[in-house]
């Protein structure tokens, strides 16, 4: 399934936290045998709950892991133009050379990127001047042009981070991450801390900048309604494994994994008064995950086979993969778009 249009291919990736703390050895399989590929010019959403391993997964993708997290097995290949690189096989100089220029990162807390005691301008020159590899004058010209394209006034370069609102700061970090026109952007819950009104604007901005530059974005959040609005394809992660992957619309209308069906079906909506059920049971402990299919203790469709055998991620439709023994029997939980929804003026 890997072809030359894929910007990133991940094969059988395993990354574990290995800790020996005060003699107690622990191994947490945060990323367990994940195979996926990201195409050019798409937004790929990664959805998962807390401790599903989604944060570890994107840290591995960003080549930003530190012990105790380590890549145990698998391959990771980026293709930027004619550069082909596996960050875990390449030297650190080669990895640094692709950072920011080809591969950048939008973080959750804008304050952790922007230096609070220096003007925004300094953050831009610190992060982006080296990777862009042009002279000072061209650098600032391009930066100003980039800000204008994102409907941000170049005046903000003179501001301090605390002078801007939370939403504006997040926009600045997006501008900062995209100023070198990277082909691959990893966005880690960039809107989770924002208020609802601002959230929509920031999402629209990410979507716009992605379309203008034609880059690929890996967008991580637990909020399915955000994915519904921004992602082209979604990968659902549960307990360190990819359980379903497919085009956004397909996952919302015809999910083939009971966990996805639940996530999509339990979203309350204005205008919909039907009772939404919660999923019983507790999220799995990655240090001691359930046997077989890791979702089986909470699954309404579980059969004996699910307790012992791990379902493989198999193709169930047009670029749609699901890891479920009973994928054919999964039904969407609630009426979704396509069927008549209740009128909301």
């Amino acid at each position, binding site marked *: 399934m890997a072809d030359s249009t894929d910007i990133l291919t991940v094969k059988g990736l395993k990354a574990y936290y290995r*800790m020996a*703390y*005060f*003699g*107690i050895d622990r191994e947490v399989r945060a990323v367990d045998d994940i195979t996926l590929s990201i195409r050019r010019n798409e937004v790929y959403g990664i959805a998962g709950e807390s*401790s599903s391993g989604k944060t570890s997964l994107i840290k591995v993708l960003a080549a930003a892991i530190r012990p105790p997290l380590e890549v145990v097995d698998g391959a990771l290949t980026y293709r930027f133009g004619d550069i082909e690189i596996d960050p875990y096989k390449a030297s650190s100089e080669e990895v640094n050379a692709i950072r920011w220029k080809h591969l950048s990162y939008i973080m959750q807390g804008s304050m952790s990127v922007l230096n609070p005691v220096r003007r925004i301008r300094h953050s831009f020159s610190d992060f982006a001047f080296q990777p862009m590899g042009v002279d000072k004058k061209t650098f600032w010209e391009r930066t100003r042009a980039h800000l204008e394209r994102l409907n941000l006034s170049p005046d903000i370069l003179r501001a301090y981070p605390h002078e801007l609102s939370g939403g504006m700061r997040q926009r600045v970090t997006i501008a900062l991450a995209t100023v070198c026109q990277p082909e691959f952007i990893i966005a880690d819950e960039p809107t989770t801390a924002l208020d609802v009104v601002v959230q929509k604007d920031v999402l629209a901005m990410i979507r716009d900048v992605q379309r203008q530059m034609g880059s690929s974005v890996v967008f991580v959040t637990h909020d399915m309604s955000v994915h519904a609005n921004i992602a082209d394809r979604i990968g659902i992660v549960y307990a360190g494994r990819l359980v379903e992957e497919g085009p956004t619309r397909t996952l919302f209308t015809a999910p083939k994994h009971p966990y996805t069906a639940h996530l999509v079906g339990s979203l309350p909506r204005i205008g919909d008064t039907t009772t939404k059920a919660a999923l019983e049971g507790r999220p799995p*402990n990655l240090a001691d995950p359930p046997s077989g299919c890791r979702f089986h203790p909470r699954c309404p469709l579980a059969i004996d086979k699910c307790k012992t055998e791990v379902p493989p991620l198999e193709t169930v439709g047009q670029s749609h993969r699901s890891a479920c023994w009973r994928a054919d029997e999964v039904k969407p939980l609630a009426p979704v778009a396509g069927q008549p929804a209740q009128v909301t003026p």
Partner: protein
Amino acid sequence: MFAIIRDLTRYNIEFAIGCVLVGIITLFALASFFAPVGPTMIYVVPPDMPPSLSYWFGTNSRGQDLFWQLSYAFRNTLTFGVMVAAISRIISITVGLLAGYLGGWVDRVLMFFNDIFVSLPIFPILILVYFVLRSNLDMFTLALIMGCLGWPFDARLIRSVSLGLRHREFTRHATFSGMTPRKIMFEEHLPYVMPIVLATAIANMIWSIGMEVTLAVLGFTNLNIPTVGTTLYWANNHSAMIVGVWWWILIPVILIVTLFIGLFLLTVSLNEYIDPRSRLRRMGGA
């Protein structure tokens, strides 16, 4: 608590070394209970004998066996350090938790006194105390005075932790469970503060022992009580270094440095446990 100490001895090399060093000194101090001679008797052995098989640590110019003499000295010094630490811990826990949890005017009044104690020049006060009490200054009185002077920095530290705890949701839960402030302070917040208390207690022992040695060397304590400080005072008084009785100074210095290194290693390794949340995160659960 026991499990923590067991894990620390097993897996933390600093803690193990610290335990061994402090343990050796403690055993040495406890040996004084089996001493054949009293600590105040002089000229019971030939003076100025270098360390040998019959006198392990040699004898001093006052005709005392340094082994037993130093054993008494370390017993007194350790007891003194523990007393000061205990007294100052009681004050700093009480003041810190009250000021941090109750806040408002209680906090302002307590921190007013705290700041006064911070700015007090401790050394001149102790010298003044010596001149007033002279030979009435026994170990316990000195420990009491130093305990009453050695709490303010740690009380501030405990207060700052307690201030943070006051705004945590579990404290509000405890309030709405009908728990009394006393129960919240001493059952909910104290366990959080305990690692700090332990670590600062050891630091406080180092401080108080060092202070006692300084005072004694200068002759500002009751010189009839054998302590590490008074041992050094008498050695100085008899010009031990000049007349070549080097063991009279070198051996107590080596022993006190051993004790300090041991205590320091214990503080360092206990600091690993200062944040209970990180401990939980690393040891179990998520």
